């Protein structure tokens, strides 16, 4: 792996910092609405107190989902991938202005989508299933965010090509390799949502199309919806494989298996969207079953990741004097907030992964589909494995970008633990309620069918939600003081790029060739989606008029 001696320019750092700023700003608003959902089960009609600023529970839930799951993630990830590109390749961006344009489009899209959301004209949640209809500005804004991220991705590809010309035989550094795969996956996957918005939702919301086909729209949405999960997750994996081992004083256990895992995530994470549609009426069971099998296949690189990451951690812990079969875990640097946050994220992800296998299990989905179990699940994945890892990354990234020492690192450790404990409490409550039959996306405090027996679980959710809010704001305050306190202590932070135990140059050359893997990705998508896309498009019925939120 290349030596970490390249010093990023101040402009580059500022550019990445802007991504972070928008991401954290989005989180600061999105996180506010989380506890409001969670407390609602105990104290109903809380939103009455927020009028006229926020009109309804569903406006709040839309803000929570869009800002946290779409904006916080996408801005953080494009910023982080800018870093893995520049620092991994040890060279500046080839066309920085292209990346600035991409970022500008993302910000413009966010502002455009924010208008209807804040006016309660887009309270359709972050899945925006038609025929519930939002203002056209909402669809337009989301499209621009996605297109902007594509443009930034093209900037990464140009930079990679330039590096490849200068280094024709070198292995692509791991963090850059992972970042590029993340971006390719994203660009491939978002074709579904782009098609849904541009051919159905946008013209329909503008009155140019009399109706949409809600079933086909769901198929288009979930073409993007599941790989989206891997777009969130892979940057956390880049950190777990490529940075975290260094932070614990160790090395990456296996460079080649890490690369194989990333290739498998690219190839396997798109052709399985029907596992979100197991109980949809318009998709034949055979195709649902095929997608269930393909979803299971992603379990394989996930298990490889678990092995390699834990083996890398153990290698570091033993070098620090760790002993015993499991007690080596104590020898990890738990006092480093960046490490603590990512280790705790990994532990939560263990439970999230098990729940994910449950969801993907074809007929078992009949029990959990659209119940509170589902948000319980994805708060362990996107809101823990991903978000808590991103928080951990921030604890070295923001000091690196600002040249300041992290403010109150011991508080940052507490922050990570608060998130961990809050999430255990909250997600346990949600999973249990889901198994009892509680629907998701529902203010249970005012639902007439709720039995008294659920009160304890609803209280548990509220309790977990409040802890999570405290943890979110502790994170935001620590970052804000670190970045903006003029009297903050100056310090130089190194980017913790992990070396591999095995020399990356000794890993097989086919692991650094794009074409075979891209062809495999395309082929598998054609096989897994082709027949159903033809069938659903040839029988499309644009019969559903729009229903604005009321």
């Amino acid at each position: 792996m290349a030596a970490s001696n390249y010093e990023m320019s101040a402009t580059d750092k500022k550019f990445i910092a802007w991504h972070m700023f928008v991401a954290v700003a989005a989180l600061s608003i999105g996180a506010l609405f989380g506890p409001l959902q969670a407390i609602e089960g105990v104290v109903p009609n809380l939103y009455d107190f927020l009028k006229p600023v926020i009109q309804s529970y569903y406006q709040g839930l839309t803000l929570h989902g869009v800002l946290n799951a779409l904006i916080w993630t996408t801005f953080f990830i494009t910023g982080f991938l800018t870093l893995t590109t520049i620092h991994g390749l040890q060279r500046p961006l080839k066309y920085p202005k292209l990346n600035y344009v991409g970022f500008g489009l993302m910000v413009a899209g966010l502002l455009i989508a924010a208008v209807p959301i804040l006016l309660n004209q887009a309270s359709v949640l972050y899945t925006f299933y038609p025929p519930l209809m939002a203002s056209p500005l909402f669809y337009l804004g989301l499209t621009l965010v996605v297109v902007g991220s594509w443009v930034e991705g093209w900037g990464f590809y140009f930079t990679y090509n330039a590096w490849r010309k200068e280094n024709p035989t070198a292995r692509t550094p791991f963090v850059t390799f992972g970042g590029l795969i993340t971006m390719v996956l994203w660009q491939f996957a978002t074709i579904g949502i782009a098609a849904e918005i541009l051919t159905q939702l946008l013209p329909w919301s503008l009155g140019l199309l009399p109706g949409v086909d809600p079933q086909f729209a769901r198929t288009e949405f979930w073409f993007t919806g599941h790989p989206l999960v891997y777009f969130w997750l892979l940057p956390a994996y880049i950190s777990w494989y490529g940075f975290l081992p260094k932070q614990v004083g160790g090395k990456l256990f296996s460079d080649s298996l890490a690369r194989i895992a990333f290739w498998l995530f690219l190839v396997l994470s798109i052709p399985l969207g029907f596992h979100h549609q197991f109980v949809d009426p318009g998709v034949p069971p055979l195709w649902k079953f095929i997608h269930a099998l393909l979803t299971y296949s992603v379990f394989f690189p996930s298990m490889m990741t678990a092995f390699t990451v834990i083996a890398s951690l153990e290698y570091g812990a033993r070098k620090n004097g760790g002993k015993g079969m499991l007690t080596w875990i104590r020898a990890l640097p738990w006092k480093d907030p960046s490490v603590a946050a990512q280790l705790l994220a990994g532990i939560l992800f263990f439970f999230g992964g098990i729940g994910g296998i449950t969801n993907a299990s074809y007929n078992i989905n009949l029990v959990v589909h659209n119940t509170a179990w589902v948000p319980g699940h994805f708060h362990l994945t996107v809101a823990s494995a991903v978000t808590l890892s991103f928080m951990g990354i921030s604890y070295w990234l923001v000091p690196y970008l600002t040249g300041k020492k992290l403010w109150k690192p011991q508080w940052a450790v507490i922050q990570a633990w608060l998130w961990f404990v809050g999430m255990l409490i909250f997600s346990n409550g949600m999973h249990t309620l889901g198994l009892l039959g509680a629907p998701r996306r529902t203010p249970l405090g005012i639902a007439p069918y709720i039995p008294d027996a659920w009160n304890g679980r609803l209280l548990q959710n509220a309790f977990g939600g409040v802890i999570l809010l405290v943890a979110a704001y502790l994170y935001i305050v620590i970052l804000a003081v670190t970045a903006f306190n003029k009297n903050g202590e100056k310090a130089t932070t190194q980017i913790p790029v992990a070396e591999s135990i095995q020399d990356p140059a000794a890993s097989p050359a086919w692991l650094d060739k794009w074409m075979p893997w891209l062809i495999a990705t395309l082929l598998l998508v054609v096989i897994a989606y082709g027949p159903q896309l033809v069938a659903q498009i040839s029988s499309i019925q644009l019969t559903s008029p729009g229903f604005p939120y009321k």
Partner: protein
Amino acid sequence: MSGQANTRLHIDAYERNWMIISVVLLVVFVTAVSVAGFMMGINVPAPQNRVNPNTVAKEGPFSTPGLRELGGGKYEAYILAGNWKYDPKEMSVPVGSSVTFYITSSDVQHGFKLANLETGEATNLNVQVVPGQVSKLTIKLDKPGTYQYICTEYCGGAHPTMFGTLTVTP
């Protein structure tokens, strides 16, 4: 760089065993799901004839939603979801009945999940209700009690109030 010539992939022995365990686990999962689905008949909905959401309330079987007895302990239930209500809102069948549900929507997407919320007993009836499509699923009701069917898909402001009741009489 001498890497180009080296195409052998090194896999640690522990990691190889771990990968074998992963594959075995997957085979177990696939077997369990397949046995439940294709031998025990716990299956997911399949496409039915399409309907027009704009006219479905006025013509065809959904213009007179409700329970129809077929004889021999078998029933059909036609349910129309719309405007934050299910039609019919209440149904009753004797214990041991096998009921085939046909559900569609006259407006936005809804959900339909049947469970006894008091006892926490779920059933395997849980479908997405999509305008233009008919969600069909058959279940056998072997335990008496009061079951609720609740909307599990966000359908607008009054979504939390959308439910109905199915009584299974002893």
